[in-house]
């Protein structure tokens, strides 16, 4: 293999190099494992699987040599967020509760990646049980932002975002409940997708907020992300909320010539932006041809954060009940402990503070006498937010906003104030509540050279138009040369 300049970086480059014989899957995997070692200080990975990856790479090479081509992901190294089950490999959810846990099965998305020939090199760090916006809630320490190691990568899928941003892998999987793929993608300067709720099977994704959770890809390019989504999406008999729905060839959609498009700008999302942030959003959009910007109203946006933290926490309080110290994970039991003692001691020792906070919050919201005031009201807010979007999409094709109100912030900057941390997700949470597909694409950089991300939100099941417009932003930004 040649020097660093010649090594394939993006999915397209890798696919071409593998098929031209310029490199082998085994070499790509070794390169990825080597880079993971080089970037150990980022703390992006919780575990690596060199033996498994090398075996899979050897198999991928044999298959290609014998003419069995599994498609664009064949032989490509990927990283998987550590809350997505991988058979026999650690799946800790970045929680000491599951320190030694290896699930007995593969998540559907993982199985589909393997079937597409992708090679899993390891599992990435995250906020414990995906609860957080900075990756500082990990039991195994924070992930550092590869672009500035004094800053957070965003969260909760910080490790998967950082692994792509650092060039360790061209692709990775994260999970997004209220912004956990899009926000770290924005803060790390990569592409991140939250598909339509139900587009990707949740089977094997350790549940946080079940009615919101979606697995989504990170990639260096929009087309790369589209290719990964293509591989993992589609109906799954193991997930009752994942129906068969028509799918376009999204990678091809990215390359289609496109005509004029109406792009909605929600007033509620731009009102409080700083001048710099506003410029980061409007600069590219206003400069692009054939883009008609239309102001739209999403009046119930102000209820989104509160509704989200009630609903996601309520679901989480039940979802995390299975971590009881009985069948797997941490068990703290003294000889004289009774059952109640084992529950309390195991869960006290196993869960970190943010997880405990959300379990308490969710338990309270579901309690007798409070249910209607909290859970019931939050459901109403969720429905109202959904119809806001429905109305907006009567006027526009897609909606655009910043992904995050700020660029990457410094480590520890928000850890003392959970509420401020929760506001990191203010632009991503509403589309999660509505179940809409959304993508974050790198836009310009701020004064410190840190990337902004632009979020594109599309109607249900219309990932195609989302990818198309995201590709236009991507190429505009690239030609403007404004990336960090």
């Amino acid at each position, binding site marked *: 293999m040649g020097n660093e300049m010649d090594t394939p970086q993006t999915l397209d480059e890798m696919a071409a190099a593998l098929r031209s014989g310029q490199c082998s899957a085994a070499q790509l995997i070794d390169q990825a494992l080597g880079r993971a070692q080089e970037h150990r200080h980022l703390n992006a990975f919780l575990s690596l699987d060199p033996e498994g990856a090398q075996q899979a790479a050897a198999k991928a090479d044999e298959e290609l040599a014998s003419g069995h081509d599994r498609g664009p992901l064949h032989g490509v190294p990927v990283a998987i967020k550590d809350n*997505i*089950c991988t058979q026999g490999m650690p*799946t800790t*959810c970045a929680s000491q509760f*599951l320190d030694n*846990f290896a*699930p*007995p*099965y593969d*998540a559907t998305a993982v199985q589909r990646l393997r079937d597409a020939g992708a090679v899993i090199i390891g599992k990435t760090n995250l906020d414990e049980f995906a609860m957080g916006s900075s990756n500082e809630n990990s039991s195994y320490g924070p992930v550092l932002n590869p672009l500035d190691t004094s800053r957070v990568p965003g969260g909760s899928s910080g490790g998967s975002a950082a692994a792509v941003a650092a060039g360790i892998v061209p692709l990775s999987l994260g999970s997004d409940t209220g912004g956990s793929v899009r926000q770290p993608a924005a803060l790390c300067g990569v592409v991140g997708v939250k598909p339509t709720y139900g587009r990707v099977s*949740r*089977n*094997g*994704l*350790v*549940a946080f907020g*079940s*009615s919101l959770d979606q697995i989504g890809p990170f990639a260096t390019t929009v087309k790369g992300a589209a290719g990964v989504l293509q591989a993992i999406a589609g109906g799954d*008999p*193991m*997930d*009752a*909320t994942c129906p068969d729905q028509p799918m376009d060839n999204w990678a091809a959609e990215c390359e289609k010539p496109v005509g004029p498009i109406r792009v909605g700008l929600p007033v509620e999302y731009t009102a409080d932006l700083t001048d710099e942030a506003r410029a980061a959003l409007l600069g590219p959009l206003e400069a692009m041809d054939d883009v008609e910007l239309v102001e739209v109203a999403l009046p119930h946006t102000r209820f989104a954060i509160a509704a989200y933290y009630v609903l996601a926490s*309520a*679901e989480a*309080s*039940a979802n*995390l*009940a*299975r*971590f*009881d110290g*009985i*069948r*797997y994970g941490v068990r703290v039991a003294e000889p004289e402990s009774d*059952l109640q003692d084992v*529950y309390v001691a195991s869960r006290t020792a196993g869960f970190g503070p943010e997880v405990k906070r959300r379990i308490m919050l969710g*338990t309270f919201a*579901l*309690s*007798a006498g409070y*249910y209607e005031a909290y*859970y019931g009201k939050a459901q109403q807010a969720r429905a109202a937010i959904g119809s806001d979007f429905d109305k907006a999409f009567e006027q526009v094709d897609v909606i655009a906003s910043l992904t995050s109100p700020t660029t990457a912030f410094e480590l520890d900057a928000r850890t003392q104030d959970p509420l401020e941390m929760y506001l990191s997700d203010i632009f991503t949470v509403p589309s999660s509540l509505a179940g809409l597909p959304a993508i974050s694409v790198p836009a310009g950089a701020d004064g410190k050279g840190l990337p902004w991300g632009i979020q594109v939100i599309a109607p249900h099941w219309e990932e195609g138009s989302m990818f198309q417009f995201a590709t236009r932003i991507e190429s505009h930004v690239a030609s403007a040369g404004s990336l960090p």
Partner: protein
Amino acid sequence: MTIWTGASGTEYEPVIGLEVHAQLRTASKLFCACPTVFGAEPNHHCCPVCTGMPGTLPVINRRAVELAIRLCTAVGGTVHSGSVFSRKNYFYPDLPNGYQISQFDKPLCTGGGVWIDTEETGRKFIRLTRIHMENDAGKSSHSGDGHSLVDLNRSGMPLCEIVSEADMRSPQEAMAYMKALRSILRYTEVSDGNMEEGSFRCDANISVRVMGTEPFGTKSELKNINSFRFVGQALEYEIRRHIDVVDSGGSLEQDTRLWDSKKHVTMFMRGKEDAHDYRYFPEPDLLPLDLDPSWVAEIAETVPELADERSQRFQADLGLPSYDAGVLTAERELADYFEEAAGMVSTPDEWKALSNWIMGDVLRRLKEENLDTTAIPIRPQRLVQLLALITDGVISGKIAKKVFDELWEHDVDPATIVEDRGWKQVSDTAAIDTIIQSILADNPNEVEEYRAGKTKLRGFFVGQVMRAMRGQGNPQVVNQRLSALLDNTN
């Protein structure tokens, strides 16, 4: 009717409602593909879903929904499309997810009811509040040395919970209701109703009130009473306990209790203040059950004629007494058996005779050999043939019992048995006269006493004659000839 009276002389009325859990007869569990076969090695019928592994999701078993709908139709309930599964949250080691998936505010079925028939109060309609679906928990066993074992084979078994209104007024009615409900479950093949294997379990809500007053008293909930007999005993005990407290001016606290079937007492389990807050909320992993009306209609078509209706028909069309009809229709297989045999004869006497044979000898033999009603070894046709031999005077009723025992072992034409064994009834007057005369000659004292008025000795002579004829004498002819020769009344 039992009158419940306190020490003060005040009369009380029990008010009872039952919650029955019935296991739906599916091949696989409610939310995963594990088998439902009973009796496997502990923790051998489970998978990541029913052991609550992280990341697993429930997927509803279509067959379970179908069976539950069939039950709802059978009891005349209203089947609702859009019923919602909810999580019922509580911690216990045999509940792997930390929540049960049940239905709460939007159950599959509301309304409907079950007819019962008791000696005390006759026919009565017990209304149902609702029927909903849920998964079962695993099974805990406690060793007593501080360790507990959990078997998750039962975790995720498909259940329906059938909740009655508080319409029952005596333990007898409660037991009759349980029997009627179990009969419906078995007739419809919705559940095997097997109480030993835990596929039919009962909780009872009980309170008492002064006879003639409206408001319900404070209730106790009796948990997990797993036989008809225990339901009766537990309710009797609890009614007495409630009356004793109320009648002596005391007040009851709402509580949950367990029946101790060895000590014959109910034991306090928890009070109202310790009641769980289950924090029900809609299960986000399952969509509301959107039911196609034509599918529901198709399922309704599969509901067979049920015991109560069938019993009414047996009484009206075949002239059977209500008791007979009730016994014969309690199990679908037995009713089918009777009905197949009944179709081969055509008079009320024959139907009643068949009923007697089935209620008597057939059920006795089944019980002796611990067989169920699917395992009757005698074909209905054989029973009818046996009956014809009696009617035609070929054999006596007594010999018929022996033929019946032979038929139980071998499927042969009863006429052949009678022929081979030489069991034919003797009706020949001359032959009988010869035997009678020899008996009279052998017993001159008894003849003298009889003729002097000790007519009780009649039975003695019949017995002697029948014994001499090895039971094969035609009883009518024997009686008639005895009269002729002994009483000289010819």
